């Protein structure tokens, strides 16, 4: 939990949940597990505010709680989960590419609300889809349910841990906090619901009237409704599965870049076959025989078996070692080396960063060091074919930025400097960690700059929003063209220009944040793969 991570977490929480939640979340991330009163004391906020914030954070799976032996409850916030907020757009987009609009909306609702029951999610999504359809058409609940089931089957959404069943009359007082249990078997089992209905279109009144009517209606509904049949079964987005999908995508596109389209399709098929059988942090997939792969190739691809075998041999012999041969039965058993692939991707990212930051000659030295592991100053100059002075300069620049490190090898036991070898080397793991830290800092800087830009132009933004609101209401009541133009002219031309600039800047910053997040994903996956699980 570095300073950069904490700062980024606090900015993300503030943008999405407001300042109160941000203060409490940041405090929990910084100090670890704490009970309620200590949090209130340390942050100086009122108990009610702390309770409110904790409810929100728990709902969104950002904070977990545990009942301690002494009888009080401690709350904890894992930093890594809060950082995932940055990746929400990518999850939603992936759901869209795989399951089209319905999948996209389901995942979006689940991410926005933290956890939901299936019936609530289906209803909301159907309503939203109905809004976008033409007049008179509504979205049927059945279709949305089908997409929901498909998402659960491919593990993209999963059930939250269940609260224990409470008996009707219990003599002992209920525990201060329920212990939620994870049921592995049922994690993806969809409850047997019979959701019949259609999406509702909200009426086209003013917003206020609508809100009032709905509120009144809801009150009457709530009084007469029984709890829905799947009460207590909550679903959340399965972030690990999405990460697995991104990782597979990265590997496939790497193979496509390095070799050709067909080999990337073969690798994609192999990965698809091992989706459910291999756990997400296994070092390599289960061995797949060449016959199985041949049978599972997508139907559009009609390559002959021999060609497939040749491709597989090529892939296995490639120095990048994405694919490995683990046996000869069944026409050859092949595995995909996941950890090696992640390491290669991270290394490629490092190389590209060195190239963009220091120039191509530095990149040459960097790649040389990666290949030869340890080299002396003189050897670097010789192998890289760069004059001594420049090579020295470049090495020191990279050394000062911690991309390259020095390894001492003493000749004598007293480590005398004149009798010690100093070798330059690249430690990919520590460089990756250093870069990851830098990425977090970059994103934090980007968010701060964006907030600054928005704050500077706050007055102008509010004015333009008011003008738009007036325009919209006047158009709804059927005003004349002249009047509309008058209103539009309330924003002068230079102000319009300023607004354009602001919009362009904010868009650029947002796009940069998304792009840095892709690098963060690659580096994080690599670092995670090297951590040995106990």
């Amino acid at each position: 939990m570095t300073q950069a991570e904490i700062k980024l977490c606090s900015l993300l929480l503030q943008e999405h949940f407001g300042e109160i939640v941000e203060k409490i979340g940041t405090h929990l991330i910084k100090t670890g597990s704490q009970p309620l009163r200590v949090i209130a004391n340390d942050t100086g906020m009122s108990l009610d505010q702390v309770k409110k914030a904790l409810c929100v954070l728990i709902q969104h799976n950002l904070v977990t709680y545990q009942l301690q032996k002494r009888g009080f409850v401690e709350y904890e916030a894992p930093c890594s989960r809060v950082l995932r907020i940055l990746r929400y757009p990518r999850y939603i987009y992936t759901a869209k590419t795989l399951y089209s609009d319905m999948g996209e909306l389901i995942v979006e609702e689940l991410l926005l609300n933290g956890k939901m029951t299936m019936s609530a999610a289906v209803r909301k999504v159907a309503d939203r889809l109905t809004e976008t359809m033409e007049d008179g058409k509504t979205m049927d609940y059945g279709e949305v349910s089908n997409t929901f089931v498909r998402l659960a089957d491919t593990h993209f959404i999963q059930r939250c841990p269940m609260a224990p069943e409470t008996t009707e009359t219990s003599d002992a007082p209920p525990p201060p906090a329920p212990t939620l249990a994870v049921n592995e078997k049922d994690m993806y089992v969809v409850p047997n619901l019979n959701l019949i209905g259609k999406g509702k279109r909200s009426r086209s009144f003013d917003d206020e009237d609508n809100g009032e009517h709905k509120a009144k209606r809801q009150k009457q509904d709530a009084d007469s409704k029984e709890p829905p049949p799947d009460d207590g079964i909550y679903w959340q987005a399965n972030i690990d599965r999405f990460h697995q999908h991104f990782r597979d995508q990265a590997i496939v596109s790497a193979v496509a870049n390095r070799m050709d389209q067909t080999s990337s399709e073969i690798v994609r098929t192999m990965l698809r076959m091992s989706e459910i059988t291999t756990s997400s942090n296994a070092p390599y997939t289960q061995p797949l025989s060449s016959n199985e792969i041949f049978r599972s190739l997508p139907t559009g691809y009609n390559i002959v078996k021999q060609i497939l075998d040749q491709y597989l041999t090529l892939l296995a012999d490639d120095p990048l070692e994405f694919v490995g041969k683990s046996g000869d039965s069944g026409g050859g058993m092949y595995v995909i080396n996941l950890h090696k692939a992640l390491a290669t991707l991270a290394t490629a990212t490092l190389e590209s960063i060195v190239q963009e930051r220091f120039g191509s000659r530095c990149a040459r030295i960097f790649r040389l060091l990666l290949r030869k592991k340890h080299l002396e100053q003189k050897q670097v100059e010789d192998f890289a074919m760069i004059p001594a002075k420049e090579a020295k300069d470049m090495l020191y620049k990279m050394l000062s930025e911690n991309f390259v490190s020095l390894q001492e090898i003493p000749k004598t036991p007293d480590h005398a400097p004149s009798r010690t070898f100093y070798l330059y080397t690249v430690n990919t793991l520590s460089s990756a960690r250093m870069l990851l830290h830098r990425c977090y800092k970059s994103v934090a800087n980007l968010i701060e700059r964006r907030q600054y830009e928005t704050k500077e132009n706050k007055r102008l933004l509010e004015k333009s929003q008011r003008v738009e609101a007036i325009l919209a209401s006047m158009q709804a009541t059927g005003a004349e063209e002249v009047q509309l133009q008058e209103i539009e002219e309330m924003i002068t031309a230079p102000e319009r220009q300023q607004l354009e600039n602001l919009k362009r800047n904010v868009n650029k910053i947002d796009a940069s944040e998304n792009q840095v997040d892709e690098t963060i994903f690659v580096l994080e996956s690599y670092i995670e793969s090297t951590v040995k699980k106990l």
Partner: protein
Amino acid sequence: MAGRGGRGRGRSQMTFNVEAVGIGKGDSLPPSTLQPSPLFPPMEYKPVPLQTGEEVEYMLALKQELRGAMKNLPYYVKPAAPKKDVERYSDKYQMSGPIDNAIDWNPDWRRLPRELKIRVRKVRKERTTILIPKHKQRLPVDKEEAIKKLETLEKKEEEVTSEEEGEKEEEEEGKEEEEEEYDEEEHEEETDYIMSYFDNGEEFGADSDDNMDEAIY
């Protein structure tokens, strides 16, 4: 000790043979840094332009929409609005934030620790005739004042309990409030004015602030 005497005479001595690392005799070292690195260091190589394409545009739009949507959800906890300078008549009829920091949405209380529930104090108006006098005595005085100030027309169905108060008060107030639920509904229908029609006149003067020549009466 021997090293320190060499100060000022050429380069400073180091504990190891600097030639091993490549600093030859007579080479000038770059000047030592005496201040922290600048806040915006100049870049030698300009960064590569951002990715473009349909995918990128779509994710950008998603990101901005997500931000906007979250601000309107009940999960976005707004800090309490600062108290206005003067108590205004409109405060009585305008919808302000949730009462007493209670939450706007309904979490599943079975999944949360009990200590996180917040007590919602039911709004009490001047209904001395309806209330039995002994109820009034039980309420401490400061609560009464706070309640009068925070009047809203939102319906609060949830009666959540908290372990802060004494348990006796809890049970009794709980019973009272269930009875009062009907009263509040009636009371709402009492006002003849539809809330959306109420305009407190704040937007009125906004556009005409340009010409300060005319006096405002």
